[in-house]
């Protein structure tokens, strides 16, 4: 974007944007700023229905939207799982089975951390089936069935909220019978 022209009378190497590229740079700056303004307006308008462009290409606004840590969220939600062996349910250590963790938590929490996300992982039945099949496959002893639930409780500033209290609200998310064929993206089968 810039050409270098050294002035032999000067120590400093000085360059300016060539005049033929200046209109291009100005248009680029205007487009970039306009894109960010559109993303901001889209985020500001939520939870109203998205603009037509955002409905058609929802990911287009995602790239330039910096809507995070905005809302007050006083609840903790974690996902748990249980496996069925001989009629009894046993707690599954999901975090050990799927150890990768990002800032926002494990992979099966994806989308949960995004405020007002329209597609948290655990609300997508197809993804939960894949998680179910993967859980059956990763457990050392294959169970007959797994079920997933979410635990929700109120956060209390001043206390680390990793362990759910006794009064945590529990709601079942999905069940998966091990051995059920699951379709992965692109028609792959597990």
């Amino acid at each position, binding site marked *: *974007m*810039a050409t270098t022209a*050294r*002035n032999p*009378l*000067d*120590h*400093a190497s*000085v*360059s*300016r*944007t060539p005049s033929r590229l*200046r209109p291009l*740079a*100005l248009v*680029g*700056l205007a487009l*970039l*700023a306009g894109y*960010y303004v559109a*993303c*901001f307006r889209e985020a*500001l308008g939520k939870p109203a229905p998205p603009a037509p462009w955002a409905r058609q290409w929802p*990911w287009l606004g995602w790239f*330039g*939207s*910096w*809507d995070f*840590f*905005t*809302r*007050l*969220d*006083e609840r*903790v939600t974690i996902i748990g799982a249980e496996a069925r062996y001989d009629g009894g349910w046993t707690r599954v250590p999901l975090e050990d089975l*799927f*150890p*990768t963790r*990002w*800032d*926002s*938590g494990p*992979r099966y929490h*994806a*989308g949960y*951390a995004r405020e007002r996300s329209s597609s948290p992982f655990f609300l997508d039945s197809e993804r939960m089936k*894949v998680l179910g099949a*993967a859980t059956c496959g*990763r457990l050392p002893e294959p169970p007959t069935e797994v079920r997933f639930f979410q635990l929700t409780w109120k956060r*209390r*500033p*001043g*206390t*680390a*909220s*990793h362990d759910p209290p006794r009064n945590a609200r529990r709601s079942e998310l999905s069940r998966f019978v091990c051995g059920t064929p699951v379709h*992965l*993206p*692109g028609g*792959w089968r597990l």
Partner: protein
Amino acid sequence: MIERLFEPAWAGGWAWMRRCWALAALACVLPRFGSVEDAYAASDMIFSRGPWFLADHVVLGPAAVYGLLAGCALCLVAVARGGWLFVPCLVLFLLMNWTVLSAEALSIKGSDRLLTQTGLVLLFSPARERDLRNAWRSETARWFLLVVYMALYGSTGWLKLLKEPAWWSGKVLANHLVHPWFGSRPLGVWVSAQPWLTIPMSWITVLAEALFPVLVLFRRTNPWILALLAGMHLGILLLMDLWRFSLVSVAGYPVLLHPGIAREIQLRWQAWRQSRRGSEDRPAPGVAGVGIPDAPGRSFLASTGRGGYPTAAASRTRARRPSHLPRRNRCPRRTPSDASPEPRATSPRARWWTPSTARSRSSARS
């Protein structure tokens, strides 16, 4: 007005940003080596999400992902070094990084997006040049970076301001600090229960973010707003588990800092290093007035214009730059008549002032 957008400013900040950006990117890439078989090349947890439909067509194996990550790390080393490999390696890094991210598809974070946006700006910036200590370049790329950061801080600040009144009571921050994933660090948990800390911290966060798009533009306020936000990122680093985003955000600060101030810091740093070495035969880099043997005790600030540009007037012997000099960070348009009375080093590539150039200066003055 438009002309001013394209006028040159000191470009040394780009060299710092190049290194900081590469380090931040490396900090994002290296931990992925430990998650290849569980997430990036898992055989059982394969997902796709618009527009990351890579898994619809191809599923990467562990060997491919390890290779891509190693390629990313190598490219980042080349990016940090600069030179002719900078642009190809930066493009390759962005492509390989997004291939790995697309293979995982679900957990593409804010740090990944910001890294990409700042990386795209770096592509068109002077950061590829190795020696930028004495270079003045068009500010176009800096404007693009400013727009990216204005959007980042401005939008998140104004969304907090307009959509969530609970920010003013410190309640939102207190709850974020005990988030089971983002938060829950011991110090953060303690701070979350101290309203005398969370309330001012919330106010500072919201105001600094919301006012950033304006305050960053003015030389007087520019370093203060950046220092405030650097403090905020340090707080995030210490109190929350969001170190990737903090590192990537701060990587752009050397360029966001006003070039004139950045130049002064650079010169002070060089002068300090020089004084530590105590070598009189190797004075500071070739900017008029810096370390000239015939002007002992002269402040380097006197030798530069507001933007660190070595103006003809400023290179005269005096302790301080007079107030009538232009206060903006612009390179004065040089004409042969301007330049001719001001003798310079004979070699355009001269990096250091030598006694011979100093002698030629003093003889020309006399």
